[in-house]
């Protein structure tokens, strides 16, 4: 998917109000206010960042992969993509991206699906769903509130005829994606711990999250 347009950001890290490194394999969550910008940096390259959004004042409204793809008419999250909720509203927009096309059709890894994909010997390995459950339960949510997510920096081309597979990521060290929130959103991240496919180059690494205040009018 080399035709994906690279859109760099004008923002300076020194102006960010939050600058946090998320260790390899770990979860993180934070409320991003309307107008604020969230940047996720793939520090070492080829690191999938499983991400969910919930409306901050009504968690029943949450990111919907299908609504996002329906409104966009195409299969990948790129610069310009509007991230749509299950109630059809724009939660955030991708305003900058240097990391290639991002997946939103292949969901998060779990201990359970890992057994089906890779064999029962991998059942007791850490997985994104473990991270998501640990993180969303802090807010009174449960497993049933975890819908299919966005996988930033995860490369899943869907071929004519439907074949799809996670292939080597296109993101290089330092590549990033930036979103501007269009409502107050709870952002929940699992820095993917998967070691059985190329989504993390078979070696999970840290990422960085930055937030900037809304631009003054």
């Amino acid at each position, binding site marked *: 998917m080399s035709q994906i347009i690279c859109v760099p950001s004008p923002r300076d890290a020194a102006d960010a109000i939050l600058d946090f490194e998320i260790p390899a394999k770990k979860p993180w969550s934070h409320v991003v206010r309307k107008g604020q910008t969230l940047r996720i940096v793939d520090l070492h390259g080829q690191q999938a960042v499983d991400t969910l959004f919930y409306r901050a004042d009504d968690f029943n409204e949450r990111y*919907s992969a299908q609504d996002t793809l329906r409104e966009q008419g*195409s299969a990948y999250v790129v610069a310009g993509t509007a991230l749509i909720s299950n109630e059809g509203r724009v939660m955030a927009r991708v305003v900058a991206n240097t990391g290639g096309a991002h997946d939103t059709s292949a*969901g998060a890894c779990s201990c*359970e699906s890992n057994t089906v994909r890779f064999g029962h010997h991998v059942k007791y390995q850490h997985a994104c769903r473990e991270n998501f459950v640990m993180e969303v339960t802090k807010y009174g949510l449960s497993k049933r509130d975890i819908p299919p997510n966005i996988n930033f920096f995860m490369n899943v081309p869907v071929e004519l005829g439907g074949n799809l597979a996670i292939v080597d990521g296109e993101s290089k060290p330092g590549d990033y994606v930036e979103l501007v929130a269009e409502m107050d959103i709870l952002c929940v991240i699992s820095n993917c711990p998967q070691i059985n496919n190329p989504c993390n180059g078979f070696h999970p690494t840290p990422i960085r999250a930055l937030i900037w205040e809304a631009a003054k009018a």
Partner: protein
Amino acid sequence: MQLTDEQKAEIAVNRANYEKLKAAGQGAAPRALPELTKKDGAPIPDGAVVARETVPGGWYHYGRLARGETLRLSTASGRASASLVAWNAHDVSERINHADSVKVQWSAALRKGRVILSDMGKVVFSIVEDTSGAHDALVGGSTAAANAKKYGGDFRNTRDNLILAAGKLGLSRADLPLPVTFFAPLDIDGAGRFVWNEAKRAQDDFVDLRAEQDLLVAISNCPHPFDPAPDYAPGPLELTRFRLPVPADDFCRSGSAENIRAFQNTDAALA
């Protein structure tokens, strides 16, 4: 990033394993996918029928299926599209997961021989018969706003239908997983854009979904959002619930290494 020799060796082993799984999963191992069902290829014996229902265009169905029962979705008119969700009847926190279904099976093309998985690495439905082979797992159904934009008015839509169906099963809008839609020929082009292929819709198409757990099921019969017809004119969806023995060489249970493991998980949980 510096990797030790030990880390490099582990990465090489895991990469080789993955490439092997991918080649098998997108190949024909252990069995090639079956041919689509012929229109007269799977008559339901009268004695096997448990119940029948016809869902008018624009409406919805809600109900239960027992493990081993099959639900046939039929479109005599060729103008129905069926957006479906389901939950484990005994633990509704387990529900269909379209993302796991396409990822695990290495394909977004749900069709005869494939399965629909839950979020718990278990099988919800086996797609045991299918005359169409043209179904959508990625885009989901219509919404009030999408219909208003497309048809210029207030038309029944899948999002609201599924909220209503879930409500009548005792579930809330937050319980709704994202659906898969049968009789919705959505292809993808080389640039990743979704393309509707009307030629793949036909009168008298049907698909048989065998419940692999006791289930709660909700189905919406509304035009797919990419259906290019300018008028809102969905046809009726005919549902037939029936029970037949599972054949010894059942394809869905044995067609791929992934399906075999998913059935191992399912059978173990229900043993």
